[in-house]
């Protein structure tokens, strides 16, 4: 294991970053966020076809790249850094991970190519540490009920719906999906409503494991968000003059930046560690490193990186002064992403509660 990036990972990062720089600048993201089509599905196709990101987690025999959580994490960092409106987390991480667990080969192959997009129909606020609310029922192969605050459903072809311990596959076309105004403009959430919708049970799903995997990797996206905020703020305060000095020459600002940097340095180490351990979560049984170590690494990264992303984004708005409060400047997109992901797949507090159990720090009786 290493907490550094391998050469292969750095090459993957460079390709993704180049493409995003070209096609996914902040002005474009903002324009798109205000449009009817917040997701950039053309870019998604290119990213899947040319760089193969959609199939990173998929073994080579199913047409994937046979890579691991480590490479996924690098892509998430870059997508976070660009607040890219793409269904990578929802389709290529969560849905794909769920399918790999149940072993649904055909669909996995379709997802790996990026031609088909899927979404796991759980609330973005679902916690790995609590049972999912049972708002959908299945009777005679048809689903009824609704699930709110689902991310990525509106651009999915196929929906994967956990009901109890079973996973159901549903065609998106058979379902009502209402996108609601979302705090995160670049990853809106939707209410998914099933009304006698036909679904096929495709296997048993350990949702906790999938959500834990998602939370641990989301930390890398949060790291990317924090890194963009830190470096953008750095550039700004080096340029911006007040009192005939660069704002970044004022000691109070410098000390805050040093503290933010230290937070981000530790976020990077935590996110890398989580990715490295989650890379051992293979196949249906999750063999490899002990589950406890993996869950602990994910919980540590998720709680730390969530809070760091929010804090750095908030400080970034503050240090940009008035301009940071304008719609025109992209920093708000990052603040909104950071704040939304703080709630996603377990709040920082929920992850710390998991740490209590995993690190033997029992709560008061």
């Amino acid at each position, binding site marked *: 294991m290493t907490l550094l990036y391998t050469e292969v990972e750095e090459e993957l990062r460079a390709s993704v970053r180049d493409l995003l720089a070209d096609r996914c600048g902040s002005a474009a993201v903002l324009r798109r966020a205000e449009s009817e089509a917040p997701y950039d599905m053309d870019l998604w196709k290119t990213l899947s076809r040319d760089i193969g990101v959609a199939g990173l987690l998929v073994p080579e025999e199913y047409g994937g790249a046979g890579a691991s959580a480590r490479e996924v994490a690098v892509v998430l960092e870059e997508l976070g850094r660009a607040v890219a409106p793409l269904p990578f987390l929802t389709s290529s991480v969560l849905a794909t991970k769920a399918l790999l667990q149940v072993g649904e080969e055909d669909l996995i192959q379709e997802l790996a190519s990026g031609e088909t997009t899927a979404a796991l129909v759980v609330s973005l*606020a679902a916690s790995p540490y609590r049972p999912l609310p049972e708002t959908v029922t299945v009777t005679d192969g048809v689903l009824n009920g609704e699930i709110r605050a689902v991310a990525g459903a509106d651009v999915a072809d196929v929906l994967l719906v956990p009901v109890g311990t079973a996973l159901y596959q549903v065609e998106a076309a058979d379902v009502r999906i209402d996108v609601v105004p*979302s*705090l995160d403009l670049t990853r809106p959430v939707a209410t998914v409503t099933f009304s006698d919708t036909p679904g096929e049970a495709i296997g048993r799903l350990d949702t906790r494991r999938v959500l834990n995997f998602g939370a641990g990797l989301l930390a890398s996206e949060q790291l990317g968000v924090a890194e963009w905020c830190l470096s953008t703020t750095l550039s700004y305060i080096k340029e911006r003059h007040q009192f*005939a000095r660069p704002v970044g020459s*004022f000691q109070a*600002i410098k000390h805050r930046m040093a503290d933010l940097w230290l937070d981000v340095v530790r976020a990077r180490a935590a996110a890398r560690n989580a990715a490295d351990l989650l890379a051992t979560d293979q196949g249906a049984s999750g063999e490899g490193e002990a589950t406890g170590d993996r869950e602990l690494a994910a919980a540590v990264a998720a709680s730390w990186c969530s809070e760091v992303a929010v804090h750095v984004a908030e400080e970034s708005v*503050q240090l940009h*002064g008035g301009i940071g*409060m304008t719609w025109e400047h992209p920093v708000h997109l990052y603040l909104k992403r950071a704040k939304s992901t703080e709630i996603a797949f377990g709040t920082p507090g*929920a992850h710390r509660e998991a740490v209590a159990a995993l690190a033997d720090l029992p709560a008061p009786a």
Partner: protein
Amino acid sequence: MALDEKAVKERAAAFLAGHDPAGDRLEFLRARFDAGLAWVHFPEGLGGLGAARELQNVVERELEGTPQINPGLQTIGLGMAAPTILTFGTDEQRKRFLRPLWTGEEIWCQLFSEPGAGSDLATLGTRAVRDGDEWVVDGQKVWTSGAHHSRWAILVARTDVDVPKHRGLTYFVCDMHAPGVEVRPLRQITGEAEFNEVFLTGVRLGDDLRLGEVGDGWRVAQTTLMNERVAIGGAPVRRGGGVVGLVADTWRSRPEARTHDLHQRLLRLWVEAEVTRLAGTRLREQLSAGQPGPEGSGMKLAFADLNQALSGLDVELRGEEGLVYDDWTFRRSDSVDFFGRGPGYRYLRAKGNSIEGGTSEILRNIIAERVLGLPSEPRVDKDVPWKDLPR
């Protein structure tokens, strides 16, 4: 000798006896101004009685239920323009401006901040060049609330570029109906446009609209800003009220959302809100007869921190509901509807609390230097002509 409580009460009663609150609203307000019951600490003839400031409360109690002015729309006029005009205006200016300002017949806005001059307001670059009896103004201002329905603005502009920055400024009343004034809504991260950018192109202002001496604009502006900071965060709240009350209500209504992490943070914030409230109460006791001083900066700083922490906690506490937003529509708003909007709006809007009206960084400087007497930092811009400053 100044009027005492009893005398003020009698004046109010006499006024009420002579004016029907059920009649024309504007007539009533104009008459109230003329009776010296607008702001009792202003001089007679200018809406006041020359009485102690705190006796205004007596008037308000006596005139409860009668037609009232609109403090939301008139914030800038009442809180900033009026005390400045009173202190620095000529007799003509006071007579001309104060009555319609108070009655709300004329709305005021503020043209101070510029894209290049935020915390360092004194470096502003909007130029005013003298042309006979007039001044020709060119430049761009920003963060102007209510500009689109304002009749007048308080404006600081540069009249001399060859002296150090604080010394080349002059303070004007700007006619917002003058040719060359263009107002554009400025969209914020909340989606709405609460503020405007104001572009000034060849705007001609008569010299009779100048407030204070040429070159004395910085000193005049200080009066305005001191009054602004006291206005922010200075309002009394009841124990457990305000923003913390709102979050506490969320907490009480959602037992299923409670966790120990959130509980501990809420308790800390509740205590902080309470001690901040008590400190505000204590400060008001100290100031009840005095003038606003730099200590008020501490209250604004504390309220900004609290609002941000509380509104952030509120979003997190709501979980799934915190992921949605009430309304992203780009529309003008005339005031901050902090309690009427959703948690996401409050979270975003509160971010401005530590920027508007003096950033928290500037407020800490003020406390450190003016309250604690710590030495200022080495200044690189002290004796440099404005035109030679790096920017």
